């Protein structure tokens, strides 16, 4: 999922305009966007080849993991992604994170909120096991409120059943 440089600039601008509120990411939540860019500080995002950059975290490491239907267990691939995230966070201690849990539209609203929380929590627990300090993390569930894909087939559902690690600078606990 590569973003054109123009798109990155747009994301950066929106992130700058946003306050530290994961609900207010506006257009950045669209397909290919970070799925939640709120709270990013005024530092430039840099390029995906700069290992200390936000873009590297989002694109090269991957800022999100995916889940099976009605599941919150982490796949091997998800664990690999999260190991990379944990290492990055160890090297970039100024960043705190908000882990967003999401569900696809197959499910009732309240249940999906709870399911999204389970997914976010599964990511948080794994990152803790990888040495990320709990006070650098918060979780939030969006249930089925914020899909990135809008088609009603498994192709889209599988991309909506996700947990996205959103960086925020200096937020801490």
């Amino acid at each position, binding site marked *: 999922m590569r973003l054109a440089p123009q798109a990155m600039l747009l994301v950066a601008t929106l992130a700058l305009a946003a306050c530290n509120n994961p609900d207010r990411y506006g257009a950045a939540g*669209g397909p290919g966007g970070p799925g939640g860019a709120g709270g990013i500080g005024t530092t430039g995002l840099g390029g995906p080849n700069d290992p200390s950059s936000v873009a590297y975290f989002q694109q090269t490491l991957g800022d999100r993991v995916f889940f099976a239907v009605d599941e919150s267990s982490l796949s091997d691939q998800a664990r690999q992604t999260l190991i990379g995230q944990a290492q990055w966070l160890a090297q970039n201690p100024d960043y705190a994170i908000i882990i967003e849990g999401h569900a696809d539209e197959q499910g009732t609203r*309240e249940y999906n909120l709870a399911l999204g929380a389970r997914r976010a929590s599964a990511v948080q627990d794994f990152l803790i096991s990888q040495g990320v300090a709990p006070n650098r993390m918060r979780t939030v569930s969006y249930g089925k409120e914020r899909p990135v894909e809008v088609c009603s087939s498994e192709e889209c559902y599988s991309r909506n059943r996700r947990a996205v690690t959103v960086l925020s600078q200096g937020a801490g606990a």
Partner: protein
Amino acid sequence: MSLSRHLAALLALALTAAAAPVAQAQTGPLRIEINDGVIEPLPFAVPDFVDEGGGGEYAQGIARVVAADLAGTGLFREIPASAYVSRVTSFDATIAYEDWRAINAQAVITGAVQASGDRIVVKFRLFDVFSGQPLGEGLQFAGTTQSWRRMAHKVADAAYSRITGEGGYFDSRVVFVAETGPKNQRAKRLGIMDYDGANVAYLTDSASIVIAPRFSPDGNSILYTSYQSGFPQIYLMDVATLSSRPLEQTPGTMTFAPRFAPDNRTVVFSLEQGGNTDIYTLDTGGGGLRQLTDAPSIETAPSYSPDGSRIVFESDRSGGQQIYIMNAAGGEPVRISAGAGRYGTPVWSPRGDLIAFTKQNRGRFHIGVMRTDGSEERLLTASFLDEGPTWAPNGRVVMFTRQGAGADGQPALYSVDISGRNLRQVPTETPASDPAWSPLLP
């Protein structure tokens, strides 16, 4: 179904029905048995109300709202004015029963309206044409001209109650979530409207996601979940002032799925901590947080029985979503749902007899009802995505969200009666979801 016979049988009872709390009159003889499938809707006529001074601009509108209310139930069929043999020009004139019999109108509603300044007075009478007698006494409603539709709803509620023996539900409101924008950038705000979609007002802006508003039993407050703080949290809104405040919440937790207890102050809701969701209660007056369930599974969507003694909720403790009932103080729950598929969003009927729910099975969603012991499950709808039933004040109709598939599949509000008949879309200005019905207005 002989309506005239039934109507005649009701006469003695109906004489006092005007002032009686008709919602309680469940034991009386039923004129239209709503459960058992009406074969033929009852033909009725509602001539334009008579203008008794200054009321001309409302005279037709009131009659139209009354007709729409009654016909909208599917239990009644309006006879158009073009078929009328005689006109009603005076509210107090003797009604020409044979003229209405000639066009097979079994019930006739006549009315009058008088307006002065911002005050309006609406009167009506209901006649049983085939027995040739009034059905109940005439009634009069007074209020502001702005509330003319409410008065029409009250007329229709009275007529509906007298003919069916059930409580009315037309003079009621619905709070809901109004949605705009594409599905992946949805803007949501709270809306409120009459049950039929009229008089829409918006209660919040679209800056934060809002979900699942719920009326208090007295209709004065609304609970809802908002992301205003960045994290899901329950808010309490005063309907009269629209002022809103968050309920107490422990940092690092998520609270959602609130509903009031019958006492109008206790709230039952879901609280998520560390990925686990359980059911709690809280006193809106402050404090009193109590945990009612303690399980590693998801416990959510709690709803009180009308007497406040029990709570129905959903849990996936068995592996998938199912419906359980526990005492209001907590304790070991009893599972009541037993069929194939997943059962969620249970809501206790205001009559106490049924639980409405959302069922997911084989890729389809259904709205259904079952008795409180789980028996007599009845699926009322089927579609790509139906969810979140809310009860009409009389416990005979449910409203819910229906959403189509894909980018163009917008959510809309629908209603259906508990026999599964009369599925209708409720008109809204924008796509809409998460309806919650108010009690009958005072």
